[in-house]
C-alpha cells in the first residue's frame, strides 16, 4: 500500500496544490481555484479546463473522490460538485510533504556546514 502511494512522487505541481486545498475539507472546483490563487498570491492560477482535467486524473488515480457530504447549508452552493481527499490522497500528500521536508533539511544542513566553515576560516 505504501509503495502504491510512492508511485505518485514527486507530485506534479497542480496535483500538489489541489490536494493541499482539499486538506481542510471538501471543496468545489471554483473554491479550489480561488484558494490556490490566494495561497500563491496570484502567481498560480488553475485555469478551468486544466483544473477539471486534473481533477479527473486525480479521481481516476484514486487520490480524491467526490464528496457526498455537503458543507453547512448557509455556505453550500447546491449546483456544484464537491471533492474531498481520499485515503490514498492523504497518504500521498503526507509522503510528498515529508519528501519536501527532507529536502529542506538537507539544504539547511548544507548551509549550516558552509557557515561553520566560513567562520572557521575567519
Amino acid at each position, binding site marked *: 500500500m505504501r509503495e502504491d502511494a510512492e508511485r505518485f512522487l514527486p507530485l506534479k505541481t497542480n496535483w500538489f496544490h489541489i490536494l493541499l486545498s482539499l486538506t481542510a475539507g471538501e471543496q468545489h472546483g471554483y473554491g479550489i481555484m480561488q484558494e490556490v490563487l490566494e495561497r500563491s498570491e496570484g502567481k498560480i492560477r488553475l485555469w478551468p479546463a486544466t483544473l477539471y482535467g486534473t481533477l*479527473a486524473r486525480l479521481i481516476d488515480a484514486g487520490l480524491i473522490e467526490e464528496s457526498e457530504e455537503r458543507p453547512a447549508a448557509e455556505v453550500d452552493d447546491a449546483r456544484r460538485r464537491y471533492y474531498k481527499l481520499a485515503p490514498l490522497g492523504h497518504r500521498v500528500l503526507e509522503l510528498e510533504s515529508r519528501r519536501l521536508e527532507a529536502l529542506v533539511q538537507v539544504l539547511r544542513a548544507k548551509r549550516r556546514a558552509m557557515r561553520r566553515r566560513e567562520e572557521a576560516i575567519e
Partner: protein
Amino acid sequence: MTAAATALCLRLYRTLASAFPHEFQMLYGEDLERLGVDTVPEVSRRYGTWGLVRLLADIALRLPVEYLAELRADARYALRTLAKSPGFTAVALVSLTIGIGVCSYFVNRFRVDVFRAVPGTQNVGTLAALDTVVPYSYLARYQEQPGVVAAAAFTDPVPFNLAGTAKGAGWNGAGSNGAGSNGAGSNGAKTERLYGAIVSPEFFAVLGMRPLEGRFFDAESARAGSPPVVVVSERFWRSHFNADPEVAGRTVRLNGHVVTIVGVGPPAFLGIWPETPADLFVPLATGAAIAPELARNAQPEACHVVIRREAGVKSATLEARLNVVTERLDKEAKTRSASLHNERHVRFISLDGVAALSSRDRLAVYTFLGVLLGLVLTLACANLANLLLARSSQRRKEIAIRLSVGAGRFRLVRQLLTESLLLALAGGACGFGFCYLLTSLRDVNLRPDFAMLLFTLAVSIVTGVGFGLAPALATTRTDVYTTLKQGALTPLRGYRRFGLRNLLVVYQVAASLILLLITGLIVSGFNQTTRIDPGFDTSNLSFYQIDPLRDGYSEQQTSDLYRKLPDRLAKLSGVRSVTLADDSPVRVAIGTVPSDHFSAASSHGDVIRDGKLQAVSAGYFGTLGVAVVLGREFTRLDERPTSGALPAVINQAVADAFFGLDGPPGRGQDDPLGRTLRDEQRNFTVIGVVRDLKSGFVVTTPVPTVFMTLSAGVARQGVTLVVRGSGGGITSDIVNAISSVDPGLSVFNVGTADEQVRQLNVAARMASTIFGGIGVFGMILACIGLAGVTAYAVARRRKEIGIRMALGARGPQVLRLVMREGAVMVAVGSAIGIAIAAAVIRVLSALDSELDQVLRNGNSMLWLRAGAPLLLAALSLLACYLPARRLARVDPLASLREE
C-alpha cells in the same frame, strides 16, 4: 469593447467546453461551463484581453489531451477484450499478417527491382541515360550541346580475370605475386571471373557520386598510357578486402596486369543497370592496357551515355536536340563506312526510378500488381470484417446495455474502431516482420526500409478503419429493447439473404477464385513459355569456358590454342566430340536482344536488323546434333584465314528472309548456297543452312542467326568448349586435361548442359513461386474466412437447430441444411469470380503483349480452368463442413434451455 470581448470569449469557451469527450462532459461538463461563466469576467477584469486569450488557450489545449486520454482508455479496454477471445484474435491476426505481409513483400520487391533509383546518385532528376548505344566518339559532341552540363559514357560490363585467392582478410593484391609471363595467379590459386564497366573518366562526377573510400578518376587517369587504375564496387570491397578502409593504393591483378585500386564506389552501386552488375570500373584510357576489348579500337563502338542536364532545360527539349545530333552523326558515319545502321533515335531513360519502362508497360505493371495485391489485401480485410461482424453478435448485449445507459452511438463506434485499428496495427507489425523474414530468406538487398514501414503502416490503418467501420456501424445499430429482452442470440438485424456477411463471403470466394485463376494461368503460362528448350539433345553434353586473352595469351597464342585444344580433348576416353563456340549454346537462347544487322543482294527482304552473329568452330552442329538442312557445316578447312568472303552457315530464319526458302529443301526457288551475305564489317559466303533452334523465353519466333567460324579475333570474351561425351561424368577429366595443356589457363562456368538449362529455368521457377505464392495465400485466406463465417452461423443457429431437432430433424438433415447455404454462396461466388477473372485476363492481355503471350499459353490449359474452381469449391465446402459438423451433435434440450 471589454463587454463585447467578454461575451465573445464566453461564447467561444462554451463551444469548446461542449466539444469535450462525452464521458468527461457527463462528469464535469456542467461544472466546467459554470466555472467559465464565473471566471471570465474576473479574468477580464484582472488580466485584460491577455487573460481571456490565456483562458481560451487553456481549454483549447486541454481538449486533445482529454481525447487522447479517452483513446488510451479505449485501447486498454480493447486489449482486454481481445485477450479475452484469443481464438478470434489469433485468426484475425493470421489473416492480417498474411494479407499485409504478402502485400508489403511484393510491393517492396517491385519497388526495389523495378522502381529504384540508381544508388548513390545526386539530383537524379536531372540525370538521364540514352536508350541506345552509340559510338564513343559521339560523346564529345553531346558534351558540346547547350543544356548539357556533363555527359559520360560507359560500356556494358565486360569480363575480367581476377587472379589471387578470393575472400579472407589475408588477401593480398596480386602485385606481390610477381609478374608471370602467363599472368595467371602464380600461387596456383583460382582465377575469378568478374565483370566491370569501361567508363569515361567523368563517369562518377556526372552521376554526382562520392567515393566510399579513396577517390574516383582524376585527370591523370584520363591520359592514355598512365598506370592502370580501377574503382571497385562496395560489394567487391566487402567480399575481397573485408571492407578495409586502407584499400586505396592496393593492387589487384586483372587480365594478367597489375592494377591499382584508387577508390570504392558508393554503397550498393553496381553500375547504372543492376540487371547487368559491374564490380569494377576502369577508365577508358587505362582500360586499353588491360581490356582486350579495347586492344584494336581504343574507342568502343557501343557505349551507353548518361547525361546531366541543366536544371532549367526541359528533358523533352534536350532529348529532341540530342536526337538530331545523333541522326546527323549516324548519317555522316553511314556515308563514311557504308554502315548498315539506320539513323538511331535516342530517347531518354530517367534514372530516378521507374526504369526503362514505357508508359504503357508501366501501366500494365501497375494494373497487374494492383489487381493481384488488392485482391490479397481485400481478402484479408474481408476476413477481418467478417470476424468482427461475427463477434459483434456476441457483444450485442454489452452494446445494448451501454447504449441504454446513455453511451452515444458515435462513442461506441469509436470504441469498436479502436479495437479493429489495434488489431490491424498488430497485424501490420506482424506483416512487416513476415515481409522482413521473407526478404532475409531471399536477398538482403531487398530488405524493406523505412518507407516500406510507412507503407505497411498506412495499409494497416486503412484496413483497420475501412473494414472495422461497417461492422462497427452494424453492431451499434441495434434495437436496445428487443436485444435486452431476447438475449444475445437474436439474429442480427442486418442478417438478410443479401446481408453484409453473405456478401462478404461471396466476395471472398469470388476474389480468391480470381486470384487463383490469374496466378494459375500465369504460373502455367510462364512455365510453358519460358522453359528453356535448347532444341538439341542435352544428354552427356558439358560446357567449359576459357578466356586465354585475359590469362595473358597473345592473339596468335589464343588462335593456336583454339585449334589445338579440341583435338587434344577429343582424344580423351569417354569424349565423342569437342567443339568451340563464343557462348554456351544454352545461354545464347536468352542472351542479349538480337540486334546484329545483315544484308544480302536478293529480291526478298534486304536487311535483317534483329539477327544474331555467332562464332563456332568445326563440328559445332554435329556435336550439338542440330540437323543441317542444306549444304554442309564447318570443317577445319573453313577455319583457315582467308582474304575473301568468310564461310557462313545460316539458319532457316535467315534463309527464309533472304532467299524465300519455304518449300522442301533443295527445291527452293532461290538456292542460298554460294550466295553472299554481309554484316557491318565482313562478307560471308553461305555454305550451309541449319534447322532453327527454338529460342527460349517469351520470344517464340526463331532468331535469324548467321554462324561464322571462330577465331581469337572474333571471340573476344573467351570461348565455350562444348564437349559431347559417351556417358558418365567427364567434367573433371576435361578440366584436368585443359590444365595439363597450360596450368595458367583458368576454366570457368563448368557444367553440364542439363545443369545450365535448369539454372536458366530459374526465371520460370521464380515466377511460379511468386504468383503461385500469391494464389495459395489468397486461397488460405478465403478458407479461413469461410470457416470463420460457418462457425459463426453454426453458433448463431444453435437454438433454431435445437428446435428443428426437437421436432424430429436428424443430424445429417441439419448438416445438409447448413451445407446447402454454404454451397449456394460458394456457387454464386465462383460464377462471379470466373466471369471477372476472364475480364481481367482480357484487360491484362490487351495491356501487354508479353503478358498476353504468357496468358494465352496458360489459357489453353483446361485442367486449370476447371481445376481451380473445383479445388476452391472443395476446400470451401470443407471449411463449411468442419464447423457445421458440430451441429449434428447439438443437444436439443440443452440448446433450448439456454437463455
